[in-house]
């Protein structure tokens, strides 16, 4: 008897993620890349690569669910919002999770979960880049460091520089004036991380925060933000091993109707 496979595709504003699960919900393969100009094409290429790697064919995939900003562009069986997908993915990985904080490229959100992974409530950032991955990218650009390095830099900070502006453009000029004033890079980075944390914490106050709290999205790899957020919220944050693919995982689980 052949295994059945399900595909979850998350076309985000910055990166596209693809996850393949088998009918038990176990991850068989995953891949990710920058969305670039056409997230759909990137997704198609990633799917091909995954299939090749596993020695599978397109017809081995029983169902596909697309999510993320580019979800409608991909010819999937169904498109489901990333909130529902994220909730399902996290409930699968952390059955005790009741709150998900997700910071992606263009938005940040807080999802309140019911047991079983159903969404009880959610809040998303206002139409603004504050408290998102994009915000970190812009600040990294101003500081001339790589986003990946923000992590280590924040750890070296002695005293973080406060960034008071919420607006990304104004915050960038604040960063520049800190640089001009000769402040340590590490301290500015710590300030940037704290600013993201503060923004997301205020979002969390709308839905309320119930443990366990799971932190997902690409930004969850940044320990500077993780620590700043944990401190701000005064609670423990669980971070999945691969925090950026959890919505794609949820999409794959939903494709297979695999319940938690």
């Amino acid at each position, binding site marked *: 008897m052949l295994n059945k496979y399900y595909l979850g595709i998350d076309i985000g504003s910055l990166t596209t993620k693809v996850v393949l699960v088998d009918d038990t919900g176990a991850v068989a393969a995953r891949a990710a890349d920058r969305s670039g100009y056409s997230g759909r094409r990137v997704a198609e290429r990633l799917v091909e690569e995954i299939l090749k790697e596993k020695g599978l064919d397109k017809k081995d995939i029983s169902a596909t669910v697309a999510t993320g900003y580019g979800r409608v562009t991909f010819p999937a069986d169904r498109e489901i919002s990333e909130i529902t997908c994220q909730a399902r993915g996290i409930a699968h990985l952390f059955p005790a999770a009741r709150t998900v904080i997700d910071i992606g490229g263009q938005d940040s959100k807080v999802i309140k979960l019911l047991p079983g992974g159903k*969404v009880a*409530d959610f809040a998303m950032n206002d139409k603004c880049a504050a408290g998102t991955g994009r915000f970190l990218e812009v600040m990294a650009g101003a500081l001339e460091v790589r986003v990946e390095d923000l992590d280590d830099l924040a750890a070296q900070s002695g005293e973080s520089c406060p960034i008071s502006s919420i607006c990304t453009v104004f915050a960038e000029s604040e960063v520049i004036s800190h640089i001009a004033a000769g402040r340590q890079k590490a301290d500015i980075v710590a300030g940037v991380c704290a600013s993201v944390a503060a923004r997301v914490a205020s979002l969390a106050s709308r839905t309320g925060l119930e443990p366990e709290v799971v932190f997902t999205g690409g930004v969850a790899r940044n320990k500077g933000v993780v620590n700043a957020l944990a401190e701000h919220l005064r609670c423990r944050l669980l971070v999945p091993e691969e925090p950026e693919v959890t919505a794609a995982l949820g999409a794959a689980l939903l494709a297979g109707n695999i319940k938690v």
Partner: protein
Amino acid sequence: MAENRKYLPLASTRRLEKLMTRYYFLTRYHRFWGKPLRRPLAWVTSGAPVELLRAFRIHPVYPENYGAICGTRRVSAQLCQVAEAAGYSQDLCSYARSHIGSILRPELAPMGGLPKPDLLVACNNICGTVLKWYEALARIFRVPLLVLDTPFLPGELTESAKSYVLEQLKHMADFLAHFTGRRLDRRELERHMALSKETVNLWKEIRGFCRAKPSPLNAPDLFIHMAPIVVLRGTPQAVHYYRLLRNEVNSRVQQGQGAVPGEKIRLVWDNIAIWYRIFGFFQMFSERGACFVTDTYSGGWVMELTEGDPLESLAATYTEIFLNRSPEFRARQMIELIKDYNADGFVMHSNRSCKPYSLVQEVIRRRVMQETGVPGLVVEADMADQRVFAEEPVRNRVQAFLETLSDI
């Protein structure tokens, strides 16, 4: 251009269009009949005690309704820019900006702008914005401005608040007598109040029909068909129109006809309509079987005039308008609507323009969710300024919200 609807149309809409066209036609050519008939034209806020003005045979014109027209025709953004270029802040209500823009550049405005006022009447029961807006208008046109100050009600209406407003109404009546050269005719006032009352009762009855499953009306219907209760309240035309609408809606209910085919989800709407997307926005819901069966906005005009002394009754009614009341009152109102209309959830439009309506929504949302157990969504937009509307994020939230309601 305005959008088309994608669900069951109402036959009454034709009559509505005729009625509103006639009103705006008369308004536009007021200069030909106003003077000879000694009927001045007043620009008034939506919460002004219009029955008193009508008793003095004043022709009321509503810049807020005009702002909604600008929004529906998608010219608000341009008119707002005109006002912004003249120095008005982007944070100012977009009705005010659209209207001021239409005064500065009438050639860009629907119907070439509104005809100049002889008088301005502002009541702050809806917001504080109207005071500054109307002060600006008074400076531009150099005409008298009457302000009715209704104290905010943290609880119930007190005797002192009521008599404070009553005193002002008496002064207002004296001024209007002087201004129009007519005496206050109590019988005329009572006649207009009776017409108002009848209009309000019909509107209440029509809205009540939406308790039926499926609901005969969806929110855009309510938003469109509320126009006469705003601008023609206290006239026989309004009564006549709502009788017609009542009969049509009633017959929908009798036939089990729903506004949204295959109604699956029933929702309550909070805040002013998103005029420039009046159908498109709600289509995101109706295509998934979700119908907005009632709302707090068009329901704001279900303000019942009490019996007794007409001026006292006006004082109470216009002070008790929901926007002039506490978050507790508004949460309670929402909870009752949800129970009464058997709703599965609610959607709040966080309207950048309208601060008194929007600022307390998060508090209300939490309380309502706690008490009813149904989910509530907040969508950020603006009623008229479409530059504030971000399609994708809105669509994303709406979809996620409907997924939580439909057991994916």
